[in-house]
């Protein structure tokens, strides 16, 4: 089909069929403001910020939303007339009239799209004062808090939850001025099917959904001389944390992070990548066992806590297929408070282990009863998101990019490229295959990279020959994609041996705890940086890691040993409410 030719602000522009006026404007460098639009979601048209003036054949004009209006041949569009500016200004004022306007004390201060628009449109008064919505704050979950009074009803949280994640924990409730987004029956979020993936927070243009922050708790622990503060940090953060300091997405700060963490006062700096290497060993051997025993298939990965919770609500019949291996975070936690504590001769109760994670669901995972240790200790005491990590650094006057390089601790801090790969979609599976292939075919020369598992396609399928076995693989990210695969497995249409599920689009690089904004483009840049880092690693297979070998030799025995089961494996349980 031929391109569509139209004019925007008198500038001729050609766009492919199916383009919207927003796309066309974008193509010629006209930036139209939007609040409810998101390329990852279906078109909404709720905020009307993007209205532009379209000429009618009779010479009159009308205003249409650029985000949804299709570009058509011969259209004449003006994006910035006095009427358009007045309309947008009035819309902003109308939002503000029903908003707390507490910018100075708001966590989104400086990162709020509404605030930016106010500046762009020079809003210096609000002509319309009146009744404001008033809803209770929901602090029921360990990871996310809801602040409905801040909500501008762009609907992106509802859409990402429904369209991308297929969870549908939130929906619009009530009508007209009383409309709000909330969980079913105004229940606390903690008592719903919400999996705490945090994708809604990433989409929220304002501060209606927030991290439940643990920065104060961590500060207190760091100030407490009785406590031994230890930290671990997840793989993907090295490719994203720089964004909080103005660096372009995908800037790797791997070597700056240990320095920063030590400056914060952590006595030991562990790398969750090490836990990931351990997870490769355990889960890889689970796969080997299942291949040898011919099932049950598929083996499904369990390192994404949002996914695990989703499975427990929506697909509990898949529990027998789940890998019992704990997530890297919990493995590091368990080993810190056993192996490390024993080796250092310290009371594990004195250890305060902080995880820095790209993920809001990790907060939930660390509190799961299944992860309690004997004696009631939590394997991980507290979880901070990447964003909270940034807050903590700023509070401590640490300018991350300009720090000197440093190293992670030698124990529980050394890792391979395999562990690193956990941060991207398909990476966990790739890392496992690097080891499984060697186990099943010790003499072979297995590849280190599996291109079929790379890329941002939501469902990646393929098969590899490992030894005498053809293993059918599937890696999905975004829970909506997981649903599709699980339903087709359920109906017998799909024959998969090994299934990787990451709750968040892109995997952990797109996690709900990552810096704002997190867009498709930014996710891609972070993923590329992770691949780059992996290629530069001297060791890229978990089973070749000296640290891994040592811990099996000195402490655990061998993969899937009794002790490994005791410390590194977990169980799952069906959850209510059931999800549909």
């Amino acid at each position, binding site marked *: 089909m031929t391109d569509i030719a139209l004019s925007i602000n008198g500038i001729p522009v050609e766009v492919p069929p199916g383009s919207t006026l927003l796309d066309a404007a974008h193509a010629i460098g006209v930036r139209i403001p939007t609040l409810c639009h998101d390329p990852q979601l279906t078109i909404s048209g709720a905020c009307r910020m993007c209205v532009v003036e379209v000429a009618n054949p009779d010479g009159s004009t009308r205003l249409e939303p650029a985000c*949804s209006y299709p570009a058509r041949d011969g259209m004449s569009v003006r994006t910035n007339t006095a009427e358009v500016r007045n309309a947008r200004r009035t819309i902003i004022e109308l939002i503000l009239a029903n908003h707390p306007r507490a910018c100075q004390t708001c966590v989104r201060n400086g990162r709020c799209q509404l605030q930016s628009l106010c500046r762009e449109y020079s809003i210096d008064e609000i002509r319309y004062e009146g009744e404001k919505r008033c809803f209770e704050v929901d602090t029921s979950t360990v990871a996310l808090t809801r602040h409905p009074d801040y909500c501008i009803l762009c609907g992106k949280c509802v859409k990402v939850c429904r369209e991308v994640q297929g969870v549908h*924990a939130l*929906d619009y409730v009530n009508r007209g001025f009383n409309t709000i987004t909330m969980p079913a029956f105004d229940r606390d979020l903690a008592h719903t099917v919400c999996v705490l993936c945090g994708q809604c927070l990433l989409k929220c243009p304002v501060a209606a959904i927030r991290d439940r922050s643990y920065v104060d708790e961590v500060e207190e622990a760091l100030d407490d001389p009785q406590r031994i503060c230890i930290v671990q940090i997840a793989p993907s953060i090295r490719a994203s944390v720089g964004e909080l300091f103005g660096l372009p997405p995908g800037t790797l700060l791997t070597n700056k992070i240990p320095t920063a963490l030590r400056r914060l006062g952590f006595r030991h700096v562990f790398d969750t990548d090490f836990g990931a290497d351990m997870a490769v060993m355990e889960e890889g051997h689970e796969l080997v066992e299942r291949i040898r025993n011919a099932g049950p298939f598929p083996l499904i990965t369990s390192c994404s806590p949002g996914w695990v919770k989703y499975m427990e609500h929506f697909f509990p019949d898949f529990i027998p297929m789940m890998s019992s291996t704990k997530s890297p975070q919990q493995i590091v936690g368990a080993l810190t408070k056993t192996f490390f504590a024993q080796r250092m001769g310290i009371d594990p109760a004195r250890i305060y282990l902080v995880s820095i994670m790209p993920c809001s669901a990790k907060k939930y995972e660390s509190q799961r009863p299944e992860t309690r240790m004997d004696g009631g200790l939590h394997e991980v005491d507290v979880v901070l998101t990447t964003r909270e990590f940034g807050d903590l650094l700023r509070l401590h006057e640490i300018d991350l990019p300009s720090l000197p390089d440093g190293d992670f601790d030698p124990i529980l801090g050394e890792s391979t490229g395999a562990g690193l790969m956990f941060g991207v979609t398909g990476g966990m599976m790739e890392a496992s295959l690097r080891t499984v292939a060697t186990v099943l075919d010790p003499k072979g020369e297995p590849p280190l990279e599996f291109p079929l598992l790379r890329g941002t396609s939501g469902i990646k399928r393929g098969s590899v020959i490992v030894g005498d076995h053809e293993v059918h693989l599937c890696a999905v990210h975004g829970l909506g994609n997981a649903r599709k695969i699980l339903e087709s497995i359920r109906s017998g249409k799909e024959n998969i041996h090994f299934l990787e599920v990451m709750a968040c689009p892109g995997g952990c690089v797109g996690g709900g705890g990552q810096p704002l904004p997190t867009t498709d483009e930014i996710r891609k840049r972070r993923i590329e940086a992770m691949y780059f880092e992996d290629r530069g690693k001297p060791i890229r297979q978990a089973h070749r890691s000296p640290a891994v070998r040592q811990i099996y030799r000195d402490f655990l025995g061998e993969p899937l040993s009794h002790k490994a089961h005791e410390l590194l494996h977990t169980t799952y349980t069906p959850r209510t409410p059931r999800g549909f």
Partner: protein
Amino acid sequence: MSIQGPDTPDLQPLRQMLAAWEDLEPRKLIAVLQKTQGLYGYLPVAALDFIAEHMRIPEARVYGVTTFYSQFRLTPQGDHVIQVCDGTACNVKGSGHFVDELVSLLGIRPGETTPDGKITFQTVACVGACGVAPAVVVDGEVHGRMTSAALRKTVNALLEAPPRSGSRKVALPVVGAPARKARTFLDRCCGKCKTSPDNPCPDFLRCRLEGESCHDDPACEAYREELRKLVRHTSEAFEAHVFLCKGLTCDASGEAGIRKAFENELARHGILDKVEFIETGCMGLCEVGPIVQISPHEAFYCRVRAEDVPEIVERHILKHEVVERLLYDRDCRTEADIPFYKAQVRRVLSNTGKIDPENIDEYIARGGYRALYDAIRGGSPEKVVETILASGLRGRGGGGFPTGRKWAIARSQPDPERYLVCNADEGDPGAFMDRSVLEGDPHRVIEGILLGAYAIGARKAFIYCRAEYPLAIRRLEVACEQARAYGLLGKNLLGAGFDIDLEVVQGAGAFVCGEETALIASIEGKRGMAQNKPPFPAEHGFRGHPTCVNNVETFANVPLIIANGADWFRSVGTHNSPGTKIFSLSGKVRLTGLVEVPMGTTMRQVLEEIGGGAPEASAIKAAQTGGPSGGCIPEHLMNVAIDYDSLKALGGMMGSGGLVVTDRDTCMVAFARFFLSFTQHESCGKCIPCREGTKRMLEILDRIVAGEGKMSDLDELRNLAAVIRRTSACGLGQSAPNPVLSTLQYFEHEYLAHIRDLRCTAGVCKSLLRYHILDFCRGCTACARKCPVQCISGERGQVFVIDQPRCTKCGECYRVCPFNAVAKV
């Protein structure tokens, strides 16, 4: 903070209901919620949880849908439910006082239930009884021409009644099962007739009416002729035919007891079996209801009461004399004599009020389904579209989009899965045209839908009817059932190989669902939130397939056009707006009712020739068309010809046909505020301009009517109105400012009087109003006795005094004073 029902309900009935539901799919969620509410009287959370699980619908969505529609309740209702109609006509006629009165009588706000669980009091969107406004619905029964005194009496009776035991369900108006005629057109004349209930003869329509049978037998023809007479109420087997108007308005005025009175009286005379009763839809002249028409003589009796029945039977039926005192006036014996009808051109309404709407034979006997028969047996879908295009029929729902063009677009879509929807969600307060047609002549609408479905190639059609019209829904269901039995609906229609299925979908109380994209969302079982256009539903509608949405009156025109041709249709009306338009005339006019006039008729003709002008001693101030989306036409512009374009040019809107007349007692600011409060309440909440903007406009108007307005308020109103109009996502928002803009255009002086002079010239705005008893009061005590809050005192024979702080400004004293000694200041 989560919502919990007050008790744990027994889920067994719900479980049984869902288990027995055959075609349960997520789309049926709204219907399931309605049935569940029928079981429990409200929607217990445990039941909603169960529904979510059983239907495999996310519970957040179930809750979202539940809270969107005003029909659904999460808490139980009282034993009795009093609903004050908040429609335009009722508002103009003072229903606002009822709310105040009930608040003070019951001590609860609208939407609440008295602590003893006895009475729930609500305001309700227009119930369509505009002809007898103001109306109050008590336990599902509409009471017209309500007064404060009657309301107090009703409430006190309910309060004193012993508490109801057992079920707390609210009874919907009960409609009897369709009367089974002894003989129908479907019956076989003899053994040679091929038709059977399972396999109706495709040619029986022609055979039964024209006698062109597959076999020639004089006995059969005689049989058919007798049948035709019976169906046409001309059979000599009866001595008289009594036509009872069962329109809502007549019913609300007391029609209900009249048939019983007739039956008793006729039985007394031993001639019950000699008289045929025909219960018809709305006869149109609601003002003079209850109406009874009796042939011979075709006498048109007005305001008939049960007490009048013995005289009617005695004189009219037995002695064949006309009872003159019950006629419209001395010169008007029959309907055709009455000026109200003379000035009309009743085409779409030609059957309404004349036939029993629950008897398909009566529709067929008057030529019904013949257009469908001819189109399917001898025509083609293209020809139907061409004829409709040529007729110039424009959408009667208000937008005025050419129907033929819409159908042609849908027909041209490559996607063969197409749908047709009849929009019967007549939500405009002050409009009851569609309801009257649906209740009075449902088969005409169904025939129009079938023609439309045939034309665009849809195999499935929906009628989306608002829940506030239970009788219309019931009639449609009965009509569908009958059409199905006659082979006019369903598989292999008329033996021509077309399958068309028609489903009646019940709305759940959301005005925005009259907007086509919201309506489609509602049929899909979702919240009725408007979608972006384009893509238009004709390209991308129900489940993403091409879907045509047309209004009831549009469809009712279609069989007429197909049967009589485009030229016939164009023979009345104007060039750009051919045909007729139905209006529901209400408010401050002498004769309220259902009116059909050619497009191009002037507003003045409608109000004066048909409506009889203003009631005594008043003068018409403005006519409001288009309901909350429309505007006011002031008195000096009444010569405007009524068509889509001229009304629009005056800042009004054709709308669906509500026509509410205001007079000097109507405050135009409060009137605009009334409409805006309606749209604000009905906004779906999706887009910011409509959701937030109408709220702020309403707040400004609230300030103005409270005497707290500023001059800058008018600029702000205009700015908001302009932005809302130009940027809102759907028709509801885009037209929401119209009532304000049009009153600002023609009645700015009233706004200024409120703001600058703190005066409401109509004496409506309570904050600006004081009742005062003048010196020439005779002390007759009439006002003191009427005052609902007993704030008027004095000695008999002396000048009485109003205790201002206690006065609720209900105006009762002003209305009852026989000496005009109460003044509004």
